[in-house]
């Protein structure tokens, strides 16, 4: 169970406080992999960081009895002067592995990363590809109830990508995912439900396609600076319709197709006007 209780999170930018979430309460459905979707800046990553305990809410709390990973593939936390082995050991220790379990995990990461002797060289001498190999392997060495993934599925060369996809697939048998992605293919492949993050609230779609449609039907124009999906169609079972940046649509009320539990953002001031 992951439960958000009166979650409020704001950031101060240029002296102005901007609220990402205000008094958000929500209980995540159990035993499903969740795809977090939403516009840039809607708060997907923030929500993920809050769930992962990387960020702390201003008020309220995230309540859970599940083990939740750090963002998969995180390599920024590696100490440059230490070797990958030492960095991996450190993380294993934090997560309570010692003795044989520790050695086993280190060996797993070493085998998985396939960077040879570099494994014992300082991390600062690595290429970014090598870094992410180690980082991804490290994430895979643990059994979390939930894996947090923030669009890092496409690192490394083809061989490594295939390998990581496979391991990730295996992981799915015992771990669930919370996946932040603009990539429809990834969402379709890994997630059971879609959680649309929008206007400081979240809406759950048990039907993936419905969720994706709702996400695409967002009448707000996608910020043109960042094209939303560099969709490399991975599994083109259903032809992936690249997100057509919604051309000037009149403010059509978004009809969330079968929104199962439409969690209305708790900002009580505005009545339910369709998309502000």
């Amino acid at each position, binding site marked *: 169970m992951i439960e958000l209780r009166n979650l409020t999170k704001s950031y101060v930018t240029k002296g102005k406080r901007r609220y990402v979430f205000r008094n958000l309460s929500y209980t995540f459905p159990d035993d499903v992999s969740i795809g977090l979707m939403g516009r840039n800046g809607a708060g997907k990553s923030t929500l993920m960081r809050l769930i*992962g*305990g*990387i*960020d*702390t809410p*201003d008020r309220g709390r995230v309540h859970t009895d599940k083990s*939740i990973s*750090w*963002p998969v593939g*995180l390599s*920024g*936390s*590696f*100490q440059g*002067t*230490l070797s990958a082995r*030492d960095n991996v*050991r*450190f*993380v294993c*220790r*934090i*997560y*309570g592995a*010692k003795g*044989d*379990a520790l050695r*086993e*995990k280190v*060996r*797993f990461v070493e*085998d*998985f990363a396939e960077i040879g002797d570099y494994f014992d060289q*300082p991390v600062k001498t690595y290429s970014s590809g090598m870094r992410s190999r180690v980082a991804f392997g490290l994430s*895979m*060495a643990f*059994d979390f109830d939930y894996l947090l993934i923030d669009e890092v599925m496409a690192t490394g060369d*083809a*061989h490594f990508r*295939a*390998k990581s*996809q*496979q*391991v990730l697939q*295996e*992981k799915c048998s015992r771990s669930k995912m919370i996946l932040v992605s603009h990539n429809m293919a990834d969402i379709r492949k890994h997630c059971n439900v879609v959680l649309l993050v929008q206007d400081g609230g979240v809406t759950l779609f048990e039907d993936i396609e419905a969720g994706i449609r709702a996400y695409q039907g967002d009448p707000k124009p996608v910020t043109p600076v960042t094209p939303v999906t560099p969709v490399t169609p*991975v*599994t083109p079972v259903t032809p992936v319709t690249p997100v057509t940046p919604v051309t000037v649509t009149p403010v059509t009320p978004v009809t969330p197709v079968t929104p199962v539990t439409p969690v209305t953002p708790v900002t009580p001031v505005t009545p339910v006007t369709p998309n502000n």
Partner: protein
Amino acid sequence: MPLIPHKNYPSPQDSTRKKASNRMKRSPWQIQKTVILALLLRELKTRFGAHRLGVIWLFLEPALQTALLMFIFSFMQKQALIGIEFPVFLLTGVMPFLMFKSIAMRLMNSLEGNKALFAYRHVTPMDTFVARAVLEALLYLAVFFILACGLIALGYRVELLRPLEFMSIIATLAGMGLGLGLILSVLADAVPAAKTFVGMAFMPLYLLSGIFFPLTIIPEQYREWLLWNPLLHAIELVRATFFVNYSVDNGISFAYIFSVTIVLMFVGLWLYRYRRLEMASS
């Protein structure tokens, strides 16, 4: 997507799955312990830099200071202190001071070096502070004893008369460093420019802490001013555990440094509590 065939990677849990499944949830105390231990080991590896020059400096700094002070004072008419070996006297002053300074300064710079670690949810700024403080205290204690052994080898008499008292003074001093370090780290996080100033502030403190003079040679009327400095108390107390007939001023008290430690810790923890979210966010 057609997977490129490759060797099948056994998940590391496969063999330990059984263990994992009936794995107990770790208690907060267990987590705290493992995190601080892991940080300690990590700090130990990174503390001295890539080329291990730091190790040399760790020994050289107190040794050089002691030697330099000896050199300077050999030209002066030094107050005869009966039964006190001068280099031992200096070392017992230099070491506690350096330990305190190092704890405070390294805590102040702790956030910079460790910010990325807060992505692992168990690691909090406080863990890094505690780990650093413990490591510094242990390192300087070790250096102290090694240098003391060096002095013995050179033919000086070094005798720790009351080891328990010595340890409790050092522990209190380390706690004081932790308290001050907490305050400084909050300060440095809020006002980064303050760091240089803090470094400079330790200079006069060096002169006022009785590292190269016993308080008793200071005229009575000035003593009460110097006695405000808790480091002076700590150093005088440390010396009293080394020398049989070391006369200590009546104003010197363990209670004072203990209260200062409590106050600094309180203020430090309060500030930390108040600012911990800003400090942890990267």
